[in-house]
């Protein structure tokens, strides 16, 4: 059986994941095996989890048809306030985290108010926010660096602890990996059952097995990598938080009423309103959620950096936005997935990391990243023009166990700008 046949109706539905895997293999080869070492993979997660968390919030903002340029500044502003609160008021680490999240919510309410209820374009509101919160960071911190206590650093640089018998692996990491494998298996079976019951179209069993087999193999390999790192390292805490966020927001966006409403507002705001969706509330929540996640990302970064500084989070918004668009979201709104955004973010992260390991300078790395962003989006746009749905759309469909049907060109002009 051909590879194409094995993977279901269309091999391209795995495009982005293949791209990611190909990229990893390429770097593994080019760096002489330095890419897939426990240390490097752990490093990769630690160094990018905050961007990926931002991408999760950003994809919702972009699906709803907005943009948020202020996330880096908000992360920095929250970081410094939390750092000072813990240093000067003696807040415990968890009170600090709570304070940070509340602060994020308040900032988000401010921005959401202007975007949703005052009708100011999010581009403007968050451009203003970018300046305002950067300024607040530097005013509050007097442009100084403020260290954070050890407990708090756990958030950004901690690992799953060693417990239980000495198996030569990190037990919790192994457990986590096994849970993930079980989850993938359970989902595949239940989706298949449901499809059969409802007579929904689905991929051939062999394709399903191949797909999930690959996924499970990748999970097991990752588990092995994380569980066999240097003593004292294992699956990192930021990675754990990221995982929780992916599951939470993946579920929220695809399975709940609120999630449906976000897509509805982004896809056709007027139609949504006339179907009873309170679009202002949706826009408010989406903007507010983004700021809460920015606060979380800021605190994770501060934990990893052991201190909060005046230039934390500079340029984060662009990394997050790039991840979302590589992950298949549309500039015009209504299209995108949380998983897609995270995969997009991982592509960027692996690229960054691999080029670094190859000893390519930051200057050239930027050029390459820019070209990759352009190429990924252009690829999707060209596919669209030939009448095929977005690549990431196909991947996600594939992951849900439905084969991608060859679709006719939707007669909507804006699809040309869809990525």
């Amino acid at each position, binding site marked *: 059986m051909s590879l194409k046949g094995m993977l279901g109706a269309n091999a391209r539905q795995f495009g982005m994941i293949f791209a990611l895997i190909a990229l990893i293999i390429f770097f593994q080869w080019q760096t002489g095996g330095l890419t897939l070492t426990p240390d490097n993979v752990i490093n990769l997660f630690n160094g990018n989890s905050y961007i990926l968390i931002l991408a999760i919030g950003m994809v919702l903002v972009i699906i709803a048809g907005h943009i948020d340029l202020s996330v880096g500044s908000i992360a920095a502003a929250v970081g410094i306030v939390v750092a000072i609160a813990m240093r000067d008021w003696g807040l415990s680490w968890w009170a600090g985290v709570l304070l940070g999240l509340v602060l994020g919510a308040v900032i988000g309410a401010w921005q959401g108010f202007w975007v949703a209820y005052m009708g100011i374009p999010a581009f403007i509101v968050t451009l203003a926010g970018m300046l305002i919160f950067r300024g607040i960071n530097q005013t509050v911190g007097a442009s100084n660096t403020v260290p954070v206590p050890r407990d708090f650093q756990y958030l950004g640089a901690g690992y799953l602890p060693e417990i239980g018998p000495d198996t030569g692996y990190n037990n919790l990491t192994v457990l986590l990996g096994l849970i993930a494998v079980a989850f993938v298996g359970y989902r595949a079976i239940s989706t298949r059952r*449901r499809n059969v*019951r*409802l007579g*929904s*179209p689905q991929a051939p069993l062999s394709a399903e097995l191949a797909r999930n087999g690959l996924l499970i193999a990748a999970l097991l390999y990752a588990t092995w990598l994380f569980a066999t790192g240097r003593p004292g390292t294992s699956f990192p805490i930021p990675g754990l938080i990221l995982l929780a966020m992916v599951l939470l927001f993946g579920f929220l966006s695809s*399975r*709940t*009423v*609120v999630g*449906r*409403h976000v*897509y*509805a507002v982004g*896809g*056709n705001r*007027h*139609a*949504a*309103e*006339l*179907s*009873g969706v*309170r679009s202002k509330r949706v826009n408010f929540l989406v903007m507010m959620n983004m700021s809460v996640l920015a606060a979380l990302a800021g605190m994770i970064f501060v934990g990893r950096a052991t201190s909060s500084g005046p230039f934390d989070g500079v340029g984060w918004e662009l990394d997050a936005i790039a991840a979302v668009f590589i992950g298949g979201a549309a500039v015009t709104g*209504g*299209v995108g997935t949380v998983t897609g955004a995270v995969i997009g973010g991982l592509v960027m992260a692996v690229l960054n990391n691999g080029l670094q390991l190859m000893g390519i300078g930051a200057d050239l790395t930027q050029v390459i990243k820019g070209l990759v962003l352009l190429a990924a989006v252009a690829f999707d746009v060209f596919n669209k023009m030939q009448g095929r749905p977005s690549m990431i759309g196909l991947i996600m469909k594939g992951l849900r166990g*439905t084969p991608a*049907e060859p*679709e*006719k060109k*939707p*007669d*909507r002009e804006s699809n040309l700008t869809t990525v």
Partner: protein
Amino acid sequence: MPDHILEMVGITKKFPGVTALDDVSLSVVRGEIHAICGENGAGKSTLMKVLSGVIPHGIYTGEIRYEGAEVHFRDIRSSERAGIVIIHQELALIPELSITENLFLGNEPTRFGVIDWAEAHRRAAELMASVGLQADPRAAIKDIGVGRQQLVEIAKAVNKNVRLLILDEPTAALNETDSAHLLSLVSSLRDRGVTCIMISHKLNELVEIADSITILRDGMTVETLDVAEGDVDQDRVIRGMVGRKLDSRFPPYEPSLGETFFEIRDWTVRHPQVPERLVCKGSNLVVRRGEIVGIAGLMGAGRTELVRSVFGRSYGVYESGTLIKDGKEIVLHSVPEAIAHGLAYVTEDRKTLGFNALDDIKRTTVSADLPRISRHSVVDRAKEIEVAEKYRTALRTKAPSVHTGVAQLSGGNQQKVVLSKWLFTEPDLLILDEPTRGIDVGAKYEIYGIIQQLAASGKGVIVVSSELPELLGLSDRIYTICEGAVTGVLDKAEADQERLMRLMTTTSTTTEVDA
């Protein structure tokens, strides 16, 4: 042999799915005012687009002879070079710029490459005098009224040495004084040798001013009436406009009417952007159980405005009036409240307001009542598919599966999906705005059947339509609306197209509300 400035012969223009113009001919004598009449969708605007080059040569068939020679206009610039100027209903002026700047936009008088403002204002004043426009040439367009803006457009046309002036609904937005002024200006332009084509729904004006009237119906030329010959009055024109026969385009249906359960009382709504304009002027309307109520009115009469303002104030600014359902007053501030009270509204513009083109059938079907298929706010996707399948089968929506994207469906099937969406909310009152626009005859028949079934089950239905035969065939009672006011209501037995058209154009009985 009259001297024809313009002859359009055998013009045919097809859009995907519809033939907008079918072998239309139009002959305009030099120096006359030639009116074009027809129902909404008869093809008037399309014909003018062909003439002015908006629809360029090559994508329509037929021949245009202008000033004795065949012409091929590629765009609006090439027709303007030939002296044909079209003034659209929505004026093409830039509100922030002055009258002078608007008059000379694109061909500003210059000296040494710099705009010569003194010269520009002087010439502007001259042009303005020629159309009887009294205003400061430096005044911004947004600060002068609609009537004067119209005059600026005409002055602009005069400046372009217009020989054939096309006016699309020139008086639709004007009050009576401004209308009278505009019409006398058009007459004086005729005396100066400018030929004029005028599209208007105001038949009384046309009968008075036009030298000849061409009537279009369903994309075809019906006849050209010579007003000078006499015997042309409004009734004669209306007969020409609506003179088609009703065929059996409706499923057999016997209404069973119950008691009144929904009432709109003294409903007054202001325009969302122009607060001094009333789009609904104290309208009253009642719906009985099992009744299909039609709303007739020409484009811009305020039909959509009325139903949308009732549907959770989704249009305009509410001024006054009450809604009564089942004997109790209900207040609907928002669409969710309207839906909760059992109202449903199928929009006029399906593509931009009816659905999300990125969604598939199943997601669209459940989108107006997600909570019904959700537990703890989590959508039950199995139930979603079941519901969508149920309505797909019941309404016979033609699609490979409920996973098919709505954008891929034909107009008729899209409308069925939109209907499914609203039927799923189990409404007591279903409001349909142009339910069969852009839909082929077969699908129309099916949609009529669905509407009748709903009424037969004791629900109320309001149908807004531009197609009078549709209203006559479907409705038990028809309200007519003109300029925001309800001008009459006819029972099925007493309604015919001519009576409706007369009520739809009855502006005189309209009580003047302060503008």
